[in-house]
């Protein structure tokens, strides 16, 4: 069974192909039919931007009718086929993933066994050698198409396929009325394929293939409602920002290839671990490049801007891609490369600082958001920051642990929010919600459980993983900045409190109190169908129990630590930076108490201010510190500052070439880069048109002008000709006399 590992990604791929072809076939016939009846052309056009039932289109507040009333839509062709193909393929993949893991054996995996299935020689690059100061070995460079099942990838495929399957099931209900149903499932299957390729790839290049593949699917799914410019823009933005990250990642891969002469995990990491002193000088740059890639994919500080925008996609997509799986790929990659990062303390420091800063930064923004999905999006950014903080302080296992638990509760939260949006017929603004607890009880309960889990309430999943990270940060010591560990711990602790605060704020505003929307809307609130609630329940359950694989301080309780331990290859030699060492039990207990206290304070404040106080206190605070409030709710004005510098500045200078762009998004750096790029592009085009071409044309023009003069020399008067001839003779003689 373990040799059939390649079937795990293959099933979703097959699902993608079948769904895609079915979709195209069904839509082709439809297109021709529409063509045949020319008179229907105009109504078809009007109906073209198929109204969506869900929150992605706030204009459709009355869309409850469309959710209930399928008659309003033309029937979706081949819906059953799409459903079956889409879900079954992922289900099979999940089954085969677990079978493969069991076949290798959990025990053997935790002992460091790795099963590699090599399919074929993919990329033979011939005999190469790096020159310059990178002295990689000369030799045959090649990349194989191979899959690797070790403890890290086992963990990943297990929860990726399982959560993925749940979300596929959820989508059957959620997307049931969408016209592009088949397309949706095709994309989702393609995503599963790419994600599995990412985690199963046995070398950096396959990892990169999956990396790009998930980026593509993210693009396609964010832009799923491509009729809307916002969605299409967001999709493109996500892809381009990710490409900036990939730019770093691929450079890192080039560096690894040049250093080690191979990209195979099974060769690179042991080589690095065995000869740290030989490779270490080069690894800081390589690791930083890799980390740039991770920042793009996992939405870390300068490159996080695409993730909030990505909420323009369907909600299950947000749950699957932008919370549970894809965005954690960066963490996975850093954990996978832990050997390299551990050889470069500087790179680790950067990872830790960026992670800690992002966690805090995004959490503060999350406090003041009013869009249910935006709150969750910033929460995701913040939690991802946590994971990188873990990696940065050397607690790679804790980071991966948080990846897993986060997948459960964040997926649950997103799916829950989807259920809320579904119930409200597309409403996403939490100021227009309230009092939903009794109307959609299943959603409410699961949402509350997941909220408590993310808040770090003891004995729920988030508690264990977050606590492990906080402990590791506290214990971390950086040679260049010994105080940094404590600072990061403090920031993380504060972030934990903030997280608890804004999550409970979200719950209060959404589910508690009175409904603040219209009465007509209120009448139509309904619980979601079973296909949606069952995944919610399963995920809520996992949010509760998911943490018990990593109980600290209990002997044998930290199962996940033991399971993932093999990825932390021991480094030869003494000087290398080691992972955070075990803290004393008493210190750990104290730290735990601190984090519980932080969570409790956050929860309590939120409860008092929002559930009891109806938001009066926050309003007063906002009134008292209007500047601060406005800064936070406007995402620190990064965008506006940028807008005034680049957009306005260039708009006045460059004029029409600065096209409209969503100016309310915090996409400062990216937006700026983009506008600068556009300016440069225009300049280049100008250069091309007027300078390069102009040079050529100018030469031609000069010559033409010159030869118009020569034409005038041809006067038509015979004696002028004779004069020129005489002059010519004189010149001949002169040349002779000068040069003889």
């Amino acid at each position, binding site marked *: 069974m373990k040799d059939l590992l390649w079937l795990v990604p293959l099933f979703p791929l097959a699902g993608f192909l079948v769904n895609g072809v079915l979709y195209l076939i069904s839509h082709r016939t439809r297109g021709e039919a529409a063509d045949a009846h020319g008179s229907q052309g105009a109504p078809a056009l009007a109906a073209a931007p198929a109204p969506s039932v869900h929150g992605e289109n706030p204009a459709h507040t009355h869309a409850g009718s469309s959710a209930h009333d399928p008659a309003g839509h033309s029937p979706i062709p081949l819906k059953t086929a799409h459903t079956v193909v889409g879900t079954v393929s992922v289900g099979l993949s999940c089954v085969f993933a677990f079978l493969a893991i069991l076949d290798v054996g959990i025990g053997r995996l935790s002992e460091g066994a790795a099963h590699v299935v090599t399919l074929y020689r993919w990329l033979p690059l011939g005999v190469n050698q790096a020159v310059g100061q990178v002295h990689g070995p000369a030799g045959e460079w090649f990349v194989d198409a191979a899959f690797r099942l070790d403890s890290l990838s086992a963990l990943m495929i297990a929860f990726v396929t399982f959560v993925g399957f749940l979300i596929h099931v959820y989508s059957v209900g959620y997307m049931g009325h969408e016209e592009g149903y088949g397309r949706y499932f095709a994309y989702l299957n393609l995503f599963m394929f790419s994600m599995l390729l990412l985690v199963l790839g046995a070398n950096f290049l396959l990892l990169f293939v999956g990396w790009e593949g998930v980026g593509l699917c993210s693009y396609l799914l964010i832009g799923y409602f491509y009729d809307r410019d916002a969605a299409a823009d967001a999709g493109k933005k996500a892809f381009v920002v990710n490409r900036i990250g990939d730019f770093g990642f691929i450079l890192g891969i080039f560096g690894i290839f040049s250093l080690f002469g191979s990209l195979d995990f099974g060769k690179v990491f042991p080589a690095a671990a065995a000869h740290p002193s030989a490779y270490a000088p080069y690894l800081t740059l390589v690791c930083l490049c890799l980390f740039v890639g991770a920042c793009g994919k996992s939405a870390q500080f300068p490159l996080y801007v695409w993730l909030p925008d990505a909420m323009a996609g369907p909600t299950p997509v947000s749950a699957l891609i932008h919370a549970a799986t894809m965005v954690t790929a960066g963490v996975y990659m850093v954990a996978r490369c832990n050997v390299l990062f551990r050889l470069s303390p500087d790179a680790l420091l950067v990872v830790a600082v960026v992670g800690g800063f992002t966690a805090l930064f995004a959490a503060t923004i999350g406090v003041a958001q009013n869009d249910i999905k935006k709150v969750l999006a910033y929460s995701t950014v913040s939690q991802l920051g946590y994971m990188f903080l873990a990696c940065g302080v050397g607690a790679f296992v804790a980071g991966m642990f948080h990846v897993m638990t986060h997948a459960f509760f964040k997926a649950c939260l997103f799916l829950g929010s989807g259920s809320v949006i579904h119930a409200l017929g597309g409403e996403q603004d939490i100021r227009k919600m309230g009092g939903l607890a009794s109307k959609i009880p299943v959603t409410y309960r699961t949402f509350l459980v997941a909220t408590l889990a993310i808040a770090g309430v003891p004995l729920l999943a988030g508690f264990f993983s977050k606590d492990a990270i906080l402990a590791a940060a506290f214990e971390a010591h950086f040679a260049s900045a010994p105080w940094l560990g404590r600072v990061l711990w403090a920031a993380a602790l504060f972030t934990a409190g903030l997280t608890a605060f804004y999550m409970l704020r979200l719950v209060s505003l959404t589910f508690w109190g009175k409904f603040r929307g219209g009465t007509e809307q209120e009448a139509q609130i309904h619980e979601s169908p079973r296909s949606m609630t069952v995944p919610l329940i399963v995920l809520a359950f996992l949010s509760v129990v998911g943490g018990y694989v990593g109980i600290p301080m209990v002997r044998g309780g930290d199962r996940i630590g033991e399971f993932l331990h093999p990825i932390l290859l021991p480094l030869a030699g003494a000087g290398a930076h080691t992972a955070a060492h075990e803290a004393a039990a008493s210190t750990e207990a104290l730290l735990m108490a601190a984090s519980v206290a932080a969570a409790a304070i956050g929860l309590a404040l939120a409860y008092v201010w929002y559930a009891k106080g109806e938001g009066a206190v926050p309003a007063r605070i906002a009134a008292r510190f209007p500047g601060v409030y406005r800064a936070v709710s406007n995402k620190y004005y990064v965008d506006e500052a940028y807008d005034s510098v680049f957009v306005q500045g260039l708009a006045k200078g460059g004029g029409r070439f600065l096209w409209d762009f969503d100016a309310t998004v915090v996409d400062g750096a990216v937006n700026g880069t983009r506008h600068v790029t556009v300016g440069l592009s225009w300049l280049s085009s100008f250069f091309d048109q007027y300078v390069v071409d102009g040079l050529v044309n100018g030469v031609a023009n000069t010559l033409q002008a010159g030869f118009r003069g020569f*034409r*005038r020399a*041809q*006067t*038509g*008067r*015979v*004696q002028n000709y*004779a*004069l020129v001839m*005489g002059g010519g003779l004189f010149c001949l003689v002169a040349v002779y006399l000068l040069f003889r």
Partner: protein
Amino acid sequence: MTITINHFLILSFLLFAIGFFGVLVRRNFLTVLMSIELMLNAVNINFIAFSRRLSDLTGQVFSVFVITIAAGEAAIGLALTISLFRQRKTLNVEEANTMKG
């Protein structure tokens, strides 16, 4: 003062130069024609002077050929004079400039 070959050469050169500039500056076609004849005859003086100095008859023979050819040229030139005058009622070569550029 004895007459040397150089005197002949200077004479012929002057004649040639007169003819040369005559072609360049005179407007009347007939005068231009005569200037050309002058150039040819300057060459003839050269040939005969050289022939005498070299005691070689070839030069004199050549000058006979030149005279013959000059006659042919004059015939054609005069024919062209008639043709030109018929069309333009003038012999000013300056005015024959319909084609240029």
